[in-house]
């Protein structure tokens, strides 16, 4: 098999896979809300309401498209596209399994093992803010503009602790590649802990996950679309599939973030204390590693849902305060400690 054919299969495969997870996520979110809130949740469309996202999608596709007369048309149209494109492309550097050997050829389960994987995620991730700000600005609606501004401030602020937390990870593993980091998490740490990133970077993990929630605009950081304050925030004026892109892109972002968390801090496809790869054949290990990775991702996706239906929302100034006065000093401290530790041990 040619390399380029494998690459295309991987790209298309992971694209479909991420989309599928994101689709199921919308269902999980609504059914999860039902579970937490003592009610059934959507259960009419298909078995257990599983086709609910499909129904939503069809409805949004066939709904009338409205471009508000006062909107700035170019920005209004380009907003959702700018939001969803980075979301779809960010997963490219995140692994989804170890490797699989087919026909004597070793295929790593990752679209592309870029040696600057981190930077790619940070760069692409911060593109999404343009979609939000342009959409909010182009709508020419005060709520939208407020939502867009909130989103910008929030994303820019939390990019810093996110990057700093990642920097500490780089200190520990000495590489920017997510695959290398994943591979390095095999075995045990200090003799009794799994050799996972979370045990080497506990503070870093907390910083990362908080910042990631803020980056994904999820509760408790869902200020850009805070329903009770600014109606629907930046997508107040959006209907039909443009809205669908915004809503859907959010879930794709969640998948990427969860994948990153698992790859960095939760040992990727490694199980604690046991190295399954040594017992299984190359093909079955490929599949099993993929399943392990997916289960871990599913847990973090569920965590997003869980948190969403549990916590209240922050206030704007509190979000900023937490970011600049709380997370960034902590992240700097974390880097300092990590550097010190490495300096002393090496």
């Amino acid at each position, binding site marked *: 098999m040619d390399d380029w054919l494998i690459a295309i299969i991987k790209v298309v495969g992971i694209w479909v896979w991420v989309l599928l997870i994101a689709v199921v996520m919308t269902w999980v979110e609504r059914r999860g*809300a039902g579970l937490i809130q*003592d009610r059934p949740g959507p259960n009419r469309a298909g078995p257990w309401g599983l086709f609910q996202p499909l129904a939503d999608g069809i409805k949004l596709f066939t709904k009338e498209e409205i471009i508000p007369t006062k909107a700035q048309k170019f920005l209004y149209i380009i907003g959702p596209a700018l939001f969803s494109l980075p979301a779809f492309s960010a997963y490219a550097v995140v692994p989804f399994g170890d490797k699989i050997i087919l026909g004597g050829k070793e295929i790593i389960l990752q679209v592309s093992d870029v040696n600057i994987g981190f930077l790619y995620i940070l760069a692409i991730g911060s593109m999404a803010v343009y979609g939000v700000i342009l959409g909010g600005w182009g709508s020419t609606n005060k709520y939208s503009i407020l939502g867009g501004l909130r989103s910008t401030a929030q994303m820019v602020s939390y990019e810093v602790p996110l990057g700093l937390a990642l920097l500490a990870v780089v200190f520990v593993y000495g590489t920017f590649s997510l695959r290398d980091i994943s591979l390095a998490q095999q075995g045990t740490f200090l003799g009794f802990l799994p050799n996972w990133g979370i045990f080497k970077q506990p503070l870093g993990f907390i910083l990362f996950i908080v910042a990631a929630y803020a980056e994904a605009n999820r509760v408790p950081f869902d200020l850009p679309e805070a329903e009770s304050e600014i109606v629907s925030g930046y997508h107040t004026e959006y209907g039909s599939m443009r809205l669908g892109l915004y809503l859907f892109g959010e879930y794709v972002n969640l998948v990427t973030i969860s994948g990153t968390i698992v790859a960095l801090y939760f040992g990727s496809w490694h199980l604690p204390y046991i190295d399954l790869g040594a017992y299984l054949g190359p093909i079955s290990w490929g599949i099993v590693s993929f399943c392990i990775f997916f289960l871990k991702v599913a847990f973090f996706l569920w965590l997003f849902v869980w948190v969403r239906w549990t916590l209240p929302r*922050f206030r704007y100034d509190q979000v900023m305060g937490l970011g600049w006065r709380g997370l960034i000093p902590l992240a700097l401290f974390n880097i300092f400690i990590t550097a010190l530790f490495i300096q002393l041990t090496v």
Partner: protein
Amino acid sequence: MNQNPTPQTGHGTGDYVTVNIGPSHPAMHGTLRVIALTDGESLIKAEPEIGYLHRGVEKLGESLSYHQFIPITDRLNYCSAIPNNVSYEMAVEKLMGLEVPEKAQLIRVIMMELARIADHQVCVGILGVDLGAFTPFFYLIIQREEIYEIFEWFNGARLTNTFGRIGGVDADLPDDFEDRWNELKPNVRKANEETEKLLTHNRIWMDRTIGVSAFSAEDALNWGFTGPCLRACGVKRDLRKDEPYCMYDKFDFEVPVGKNGDVFDRYIVRMIEMEQSIKIIDQAYKLYKEMPADAPLMARVPKVIKPPAGEVYSALESPNGELGFFVKSDGSANPYRIRIRPPCYMIYQAFPELVKGELIADLVACLSSLNVIAGELDR
């Protein structure tokens, strides 16, 4: 929704933007509208505009007979209709000089306290929703449904109960009230506990509510606050204690008092009041059981009510505060003038003061904590 797109130039730092919040806005509880002058996220001025649910209730009352007006009172504070009914009935009874039988008074107390629980549940739940915590709302609403079932099975309607008649109540408590109540009581407590767990000591919740829209006791009295909002400011005033009606002086309960008058205190006062209401219902039901089964439920009331000419004001402690009815009679079968003194009307007029210098998010929190019900606000 942006009816006033031109930005106004402010006196201070620069240009301010007018944001028109409502009347169709998720946090505006139906029909409220706040025109907010904002500087970025912070409020320079917030001017409430009301009247979007003005249905002419007072005028309507002048053309209805005394009994016909009771169903209209349901539609004032629709979160808890029963205190409205009772307050109006008490006003007419006062005008006619009627003495309501004790058993009827006890039934009224039981039902009013149930309504108080239901009202506070909705208020706390909505406060949660407006601050982004959806789940407590669902926990509270399930128990509220149970309370509704008691109402429904007592007088046929879930929401608009048209409870009681002038001179007493029309029906006795059904026989299995005790079973139902014993079933409901732990559930209400459990829902409250869940809510407390989810909210009260939640760091985000505390940050969002403590110190937000704090109000001093003097200001509160000056603005005419009553009810939980006044008590949250630290004034121990409760008509149930201060001007007892319906045998409230026979019950042992506490009046919770806050300190700062902020959103958190209002929330806590409401949570404690629910517990106290459960206590009151227990005591009232105990007293009720001691009454003979054939004790009268109605005073002697003529079929067509024609109170003597005169004017009275009678108030009771509704879940929101002092709910008063001023009834003026000219001796005919229709009231000459009915004036309703809704509690949240007085509270909501201080809204610009309450949110001065806060952020937009606080405006929402403050509004929900005041429990402004458009039906009684605009009448």
